[in-house]
């Protein structure tokens, strides 16, 4: 069954064995036919799995086969070798033809949707690439919606995804390295990078990490993300995922390496920095002042989402003097008659919100509206009116909810969501002091993190002044001269026009 050369040459025996190994499943189609030559009759067999092979490609193949059979000018007098070579050469135009001579290859190829042609009495077989399963067409990404910019997203098909990248970057330096990961799923994974920009160390590191993955199956790029992450226990994402070809292409232009995984529209980009998770491709399509302000709003949202409930708990249980008197009067009057301490109150409402959020995602669409009614009316309003929860806490929970939605990356948003609870516990035990220590530990942790060997807080720590132009603020394009030095080896400026271009200036330069 395995082994290389001992391919059984008898075609009927072969077919029976293949059928047996594949469990006599009825989606394996076998066609046996004869080719009459002047001297002998050559027996051929075509095998493929019906659902995996593309109908169109099969049609083409059979068309060419018909031509071959009908044109009787094939004179195979010498041997099967010449017949085989002629056969192989005559199909080159329709689809890729490869050859194989052992069972292992045969099973792999047939299960990958390719078509096999066996020749009776000959130890080699031909493989035609006919893989083309049913797949989704390119559509708008659902997880990253935008107002302005390309609306197409990646699909589950790796070849479509790579072609989308190819269509954006039409340069010969874009390299694609294919590999197969997963002992059973044999998922094809492609590493895409720009040869002249990406740092060789990073590319090599990514390649080694990917090739060292030993697992039975890869079902989504999240598997790969967890395997190649530098600090596997850290809650912060150090691998960026995106559903949008334009943002992946932007990463490639900065010297990053994209990892495209078959079967998922989420393409990974490494190395990823903390600031990358707060940026959106749309930032670059709008005016730079607007983009900068929006980025600042996102950073404020991140901070608020992390700390607002903790600050509320700290102020109401420890630091009453820090609340302005009129506000204190209002909070005190609202808290009058509320049976729970602020910490419990806040935890209760935050948990309720998290449950609502989780339920909202998992619920069937049709009953989704019921969730919002229960959440908003029953929990929010009734709890306040019944005096179980104070109105301030409802405001605070809504604020954290809104601010957490303003974080563009879902992975980072999730991390902040969990850390918020830790901050609340710290605030309840040590007040503002605890919150402060918590934030300090968080910053230390962030500075320790690395993404494929590159510090996570680049360009803040290590501080690179020149590259601070595209972090909290987005400078105009004509100021973003250099590629990030941590990821790109090319010292060539990416923007060669210095000032805003105007006709007058060009004329002056000409003179």
């Amino acid at each position, binding site marked *: 069954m395995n082994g290389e050369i001992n391919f059984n040459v008898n075609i009927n025996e072969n077919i029976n064995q293949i059928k047996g190994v594949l469990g006599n499943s009825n989606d394996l189609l076998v066609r046996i036919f004869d080719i009459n030559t002047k001297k002998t009759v050559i027996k051929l067999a075509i095998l493929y799995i019906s659902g995996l092979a593309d109908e169109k490609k099969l049609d083409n193949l059979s068309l060419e086969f018909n031509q071959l059979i009908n044109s009787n000018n094939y004179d195979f007098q010498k041997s099967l070798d010449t017949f085989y070579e002629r056969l192989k050469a005559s199909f080159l135009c329709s689809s890729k033809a490869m050859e194989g001579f052992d069972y292992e290859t045969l099973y792999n190829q047939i299960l990958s949707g390719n078509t096999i042609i066996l020749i009776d009495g000959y130890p080699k077989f031909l493989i035609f690439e006919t893989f083309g399963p049913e797949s989704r067409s390119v559509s708008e990404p659902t997880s990253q919606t935008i107002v302005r910019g390309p609306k197409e997203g990646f699909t589950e098909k790796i070849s479509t995804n790579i072609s989308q990248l190819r269509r954006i970057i039409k340069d010969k330096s874009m390299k694609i390295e294919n590999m197969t990961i997963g002992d059973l799923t044999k998922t094809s994974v492609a590493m895409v990078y720009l040869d002249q920009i990406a740092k060789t160390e990073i590319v090599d590191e990514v390649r080694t990490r990917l090739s060292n993955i030993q697992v039975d199956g890869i079902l989504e790029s999240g598997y790969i993300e967890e395997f190649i992450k530098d600090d596997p226990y850290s809650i912060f994402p150090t691998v960026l995922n995106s559903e949008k070809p334009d943002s992946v292409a932007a990463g490639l232009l900065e010297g990053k390496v994209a990892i495209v995984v078959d079967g998922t529209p989420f393409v990974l980009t490494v190395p990823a920095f903390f600031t990358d998770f707060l940026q959106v491709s749309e930032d670059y399509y709008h005016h730079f002042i607007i983009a900068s302000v929006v980025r600042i709003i996102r950073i404020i949202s991140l901070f608020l989402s992390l700390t607002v409930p903790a600050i509320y708990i700290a102020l109401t249980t420890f630091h009453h003097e820090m609340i302005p008197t009129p506000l204190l009067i209002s909070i*005190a009057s609202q808290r009058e008659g509320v049976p729970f301490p602020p910490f419990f109150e806040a935890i209760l409402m935050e948990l309720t919100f998290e449950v609502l959020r989780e339920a909202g995602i998992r619920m069937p669409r049709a009953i989704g509206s019921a969730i919002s009614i229960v959440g908003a009316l029953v929990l929010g309003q009734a709890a306040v009116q019944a005096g179980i929860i104070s109105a301030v806490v409802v405001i605070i929970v809504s604020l954290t909810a809104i601010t957490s939605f303003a974080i563009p990356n879902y992975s980072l948003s999730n991390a902040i969501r969990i850390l918020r609870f830790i901050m609340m516990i710290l605030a309840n035990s040590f007040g503002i002091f605890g919150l402060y220590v918590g934030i300090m530990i968080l910053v230390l942790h962030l500075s320790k993190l690395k993404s494929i060997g590159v510090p996570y807080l680049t360009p803040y720590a290590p501080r690179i002044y020149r590259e601070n132009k595209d972090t909290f603020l987005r400078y105009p394009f004509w100021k973003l001269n250099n590629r990030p030095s941590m990821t790109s080896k090319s010292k060539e400026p990416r923007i060669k026009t210095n000032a805003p271009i105007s006709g007058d200036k060009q004329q002056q330069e000409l003179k």
Partner: protein
Amino acid sequence: MKLKKRAFIIIILTTMLCIFLSGCWNNRRIDSLAFAISMGFDKTDKGILLTVEVLNPHAIASQKTINEPTVVLYTEEGQSTNELVRKIITQSSRKVNVTHLQTVVFGEEFAKEGISDVLDYLTREHQVRTDLYFVVARENTAYRILNNLTKLDTNPSVKLSASLKASDETWAGTRTVKVIDLVNSIISDGAEPAITGVIMTGHSKVDDNLDDLKEVKADPLKIIDLAVFKKDKLVGWLNESECKGYNYVTNHVPSSMTYVEDRDYGIIGLEVIGTKTKVEASLENGKPIITVNMKIRVNIESATDKIDLSKGDNIHYVENLAEAKLTKNVGLSIMKAKRLQSDIFGFGDVVHRTYPKEWEKFKDDWDKEFAKMPVVIKGTVRVVKTGTISNSYFMKEKK
């Protein structure tokens, strides 16, 4: 490896213990505290009568209307302030918290005995904010001042501190003092403290009857006059115009209203939009002389039809009238202070700064030196604008 794992678990456990065992320590919930917003101090036979006005959040709660006052008064008699504050728990279900103390009211009798003990408590206690205001109840006790309900601001103490703050910025006739300034002026050799007074107007009855609030009447509390202290003891009062003089000398009139009166032109209202006062000291025959130089900018706010404001001479005339009134007010307030032998203007500090060596001679007996010292008052008033119109509309009709 095993050791490392065990060490890790021990670290985690100790951190958890730190967090959860200390959880209740010093944890004070808002609804378990009684927030004192003002304190009153009166003198009694037993020592101090402490009146604490505490917020009643129950009554402020917006949705329900409860026939309850927004504040609750607690009184306690004894010797030591901090003991009395804590002792209120015997009357109230909640512990008194002084972090939001806004005003401190001294009864007149108490102020005469000295306020330094209270100031020590307020500056030593870490919970007290430093932005609270002081007032002295003129011819009254602090208890009676605090035992009033006010309008507009439902809360008497909030009303008191709000009107103190507002009048400090917009009216020259009052003066607020923060705790730091008060302590500084007490310990300084060349300056004495002065605190705004508060009186009860005729309307008020001493009870906290809510029905009283339903009548359309003015608030029972009025900020007026200035209590003059010598060290920490009350020695006398400046009336409203003298208080204005005091504020002009100490450069503390961000904005105010005044008027000048003339036989021919009637009453002309002026808005003070800026003052700049320089106090300088000089020595003559070894004795100090103080020169007060005031530059005041005013706008004309109201005028009668008798004066033609389009003429420069008339404007000058108004300026001269205002200068005369200003120097008179300032003179009166300095005279009063001299009579009380209390240098509330801080002239001593000016002498100290200018002549540090000679100051040693006057230092010990500055009160008497101050009473004898000649003070030169120079006032310059400049009219900047005459408002949005120049002459009164009614002037033409008479012609």
